[in-house]
């Protein structure tokens, strides 16, 4: 370890050039993913050990250019200029060299040491390209290393070249394009002005010639930098405008276009002088696959099939480990509730911590599978085709073709859906997609609809639930269009997108991608979700000892005392010591006989047979027992009746206690406090508490309803809950409740992920509040409209 030399390298290149594949090949598992400071652009960093070197390797985002078009481009050029890595590795797709060299040209202009990694040489050879590497090196002034990153070919050569440069064995002096005389003159003038008006520190980072070119290109970000850093910046910018006008009048085009043209000229010059085509117009695999996958007739069916398949895999396959995890946490909960005897600590550990952690981890299988599928779709190249096919529809809604997949995933669970919006490059598209995708009714909301539709619209349950889903879709469309106009006015992001060749993804790449996402979800979203769950747990279980309307301990005690008196009486009649009724032989035999009868009649009912045979068996058995123990049957029946009565009474008491505690907890008080706001929607305080508890996860709404409506722990809980709902609500309020549940604030997990993905509390709070306001407005219209039509 001693004496290892430490250097920083970075990889820059176009999307689909194999950038991440090279990064994975060099770093292996020694990498971590984070964000660039202040922006949501992903930053990948890893370490490479090579001979006596340790390299820190940065994977810059995939970019086509170094303008200020996207955050990715700004982040990349700022990193190279400000952090000054010891060497830039520019990876290019050898099958697509001409377009890839456009970025190379711009990187050369930064004047930093650079190596060209010529990737996918095997495919290029197959396509008939013959690349004269030494010639290319001479034209660009930088070393070039042919490689096949996906098979690890050439990576050692690359590291050797890096070593030679760092040891001073080779020199690198990047060549850069020269522009037409008029532009060069303007650049020289501006360069001189910048040298006198910019602080030396700034010039060390940003070369004045490059700044001058960027000013002529009207790069807004650089103009901003000049305004902030240069003395007399107004004069400089006036001069820039004058130069632009002059060039435009002489050459008939603005400098931005002329500069881009000449960069392409430089790139295609280098391409033409070094690449020879042996075969021409050979039909390639990508064209053949696309003849099916994006064809007019089969394109849409295949697209729907792939989306459907992804959805099924994520949620059907994902539900299996999901159930294991939730069973595991239930088991842990039971275990701890036996170990811990202090009530508040037990509640904290079991309901707060184990419940909270469980609610985070339960989504993990879905997220892992989903991101494996997304990585597969992206790395094969299908994702771009999916956007190509669905853009027509999504554009109509004010969205982007790539918004389609996250929206569909939203029907399963909003959490992975929000994370899936990473495929969208443009931030506006991402924000709008995230804002509206919570209106896609996730599977956790389904139990609410099932309960209410079952209780109030048993004959039309399917249609009613469908209408709720449809309402969500319609609202998403309407809101997307509104957001596009109100939040992001002006021109929409262009849909100029590369359709990359189909390629086989690498196993390693897929695994790393899946693992990164899973770890990110657990680390970052986990903290917010856990904190939120604990807060809701605290609100709904404290104060632990509220002032109650009755002395429940005494009521429990009274009932138990009564029960014991009755049992003692029965024991006396049966001539048995009081504690031994359960083991009294005839009672046990009667129990068995009734149980056997019960089992048998269930079987017969299933086969839709009459119960007469089972009844006669029972009668016969009972007579047999009575012949051994005369006169015991009436006593046994009294005993059974008492046991049932006791259990029911205790259950009712416990339910009443739970309901009263719930209504007097902080959450309950909050519910009563907020209730007046929801009154115009036809909701009472009980509905309000249920909705508040739904913030943790919407499936909890149903459980809370059970607690508040004092259902207790009877066997036919669902039926009883429906009954008490029917007593307390009208079909209209029930429908409005479903509508509200659909629209209002998504669960805490979704909020946590939105916060993480948009890296902005502003948008997170906006998402939370607009959904709730929208829920109120839509519910109000339906409820009051329904009342006018006398539906209530």
């Amino acid at each position, binding site marked *: 370890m001693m004496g290892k030399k430490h250097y920083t390298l970075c990889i820059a290149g176009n999307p689909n050039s194999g950038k991440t594949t090279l990064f994975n090949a060099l770093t292996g598992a020694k990498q971590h993913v984070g964000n660039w400071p202040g922006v949501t652009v992903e930053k990948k960093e890893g370490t490479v050990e090579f001979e006596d070197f340790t390299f820190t390797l940065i994977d810059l985002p995939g970019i086509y250019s170094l303008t200020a078009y996207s955050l990715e481009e700004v982040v990349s050029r700022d990193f190279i200029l400000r952090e000054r890595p010891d060497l830039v590795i520019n990876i290019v797709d050898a099958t697509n060299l001409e377009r890839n060299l456009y970025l190379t040209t711009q990187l050369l202009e930064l004047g930093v040491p650079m190596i060209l990694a010529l990737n996918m040489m095997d495919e290029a050879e197959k396509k008939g390209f013959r690349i004269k590497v030494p010639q290319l090196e001479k034209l660009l002034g930088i070393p070039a290393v042919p490689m096949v990153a996906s098979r690890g070919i050439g990576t050692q050569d690359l590291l050797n070249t890096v070593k030679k440069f760092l040891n001073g064995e080779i020199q690198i002096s990047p060549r850069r394009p020269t522009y037409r005389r008029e532009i060069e003159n303007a650049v020289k003038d501006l360069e001189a002005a910048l040298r006198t008006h910019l602080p030396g520190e700034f010039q060390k980072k940003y070369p004045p010639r490059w700044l001058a070119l960027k000013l002529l290109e009207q790069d807004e970000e650089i103009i901003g930098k000049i305004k902030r850093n240069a003395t007399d910046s107004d004069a400089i910018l006036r001069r820039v405008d004058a130069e632009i006008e002059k060039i435009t009048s002489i050459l008939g085009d603005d400098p931005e276009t002329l500069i881009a043209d000449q960069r392409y000229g430089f790139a295609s010059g280098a391409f033409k002088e070094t690449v020879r085509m042996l075969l021409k117009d050979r039909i390639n695999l990508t064209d053949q696959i696309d003849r099916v996958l994006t064809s007019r007739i089969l394109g849409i069916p295949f697209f729907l099939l792939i989306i459907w398949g992804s959805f099924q895999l994520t949620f059907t396959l994902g539900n299996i480990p999901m159930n294991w995890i939730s069973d595991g946490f239930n088991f842990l909960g039971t275990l701890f509730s036996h170990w811990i005897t202090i009530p508040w600590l037990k509640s904290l550990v079991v309901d707060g911590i184990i419940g909270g952690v469980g609610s985070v981890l339960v989504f993990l299988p879905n997220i892992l599978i989903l991101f494996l599928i997304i990585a597969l779709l992206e790395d094969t190249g299908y994702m771009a085709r999916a956007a190509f096919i669905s853009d027509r529809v999504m554009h109509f809604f004010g969205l982007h073709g790539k918004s389609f997949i996250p929206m569909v995933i939203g029907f399963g669970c909003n959490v992975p859906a929000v994370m899936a919006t990473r495929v969208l490059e443009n931030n506006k598209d991402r924000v709008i997609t995230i804002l509206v995708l919570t209106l896609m009714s996730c599977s956790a909301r389904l139990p609410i609809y099932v309960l209410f539709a079952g209780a109030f619209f048993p004959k039309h349950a399917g249609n009613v639930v469908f209408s709720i889903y449809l309402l969500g879709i319609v609202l998403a469309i309407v809101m997307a269009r509104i957001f596009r106009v109100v939040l992001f006015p002006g021109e929409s992001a262009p849909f*100029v997108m590369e359709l990359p060749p189909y390629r086989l993804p690498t196993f390693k790449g897929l695994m790393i991608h899946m693992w990164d996402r899973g770890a990110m979800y657990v680390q970052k979203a986990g903290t917010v979700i856990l904190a939120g769950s604990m807060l809701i747990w605290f609100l709904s279980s404290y104060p632990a000892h509220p002032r109650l309307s009755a002395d429940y301990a005494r009521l429990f005690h009274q009932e138990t005392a009564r029960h014991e008196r009755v049992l003692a009486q029965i024991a006396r009649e049966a001539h048995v010591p009081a504690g031994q009724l359960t083991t009294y032989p005839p009672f046990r035999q009667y129990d068995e006989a009734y149980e056997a009868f019960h089992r048998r009649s269930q079987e017969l009912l299933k086969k839709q047979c009459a119960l007469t045979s089972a009844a006669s068996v029972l009668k016969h058995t009972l007579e047999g027992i009575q012949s051994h123990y005369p006169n015991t049957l009436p006593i046994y029946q009294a005993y059974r009746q008492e046991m049932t009565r006791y259990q029911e009474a205790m259950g009712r008491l416990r339910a009443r206690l739970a309901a009263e505690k719930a209504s007097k907890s902080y959450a309950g008080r909050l519910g009563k406090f907020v209730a007046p706001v929801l009154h115009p929607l036809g909701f009472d305080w009980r509905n309000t508490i249920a909705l508040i508890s739904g913030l943790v996860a919407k499936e909890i709404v149903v459980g809370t309803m059970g607690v508040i409506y004092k259902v207790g722990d009877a066997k036919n809980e669902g039926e009883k809950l429906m009954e008490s709902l029917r007593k307390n609500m009208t079909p209209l309020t029930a429908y409005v409740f479903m509508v509200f549940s659909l629209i209002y604030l998504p669960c805490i997990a979704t909020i946590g992920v939105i916060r993480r993905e948009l890296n902005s509390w502003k948008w997170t709070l906006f998402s939370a509040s607009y959904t709730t306001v929208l829920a109120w407005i839509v519910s109000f219209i339906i409820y009051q409209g329904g009342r006018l039509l006398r539906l209530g």
Partner: protein
Amino acid sequence: METDNLKPLSELLPGEKGVIRKMRTKGAIRRRLMDMGFVGGATVEFEKTAPLGDPMEILVKGCHVSIRKEEARNVLIEVTPS
């Protein structure tokens, strides 16, 4: 008129080729188009439209690029006779 023999990219027929002569866009869209290879003098070929009729798939500088018709309308092409 300079546009006499020029035709918007959006109106090419499938399989038709041409050379870009003029771009009528400004700002971000223009910059993006240039980054993807849509510059004066570049040869383009219209491959096909998406199943729903928009966007279109264009071959430019050896790359397949998807572009909406409303964006392609502002790229003017001199059609190469086949």
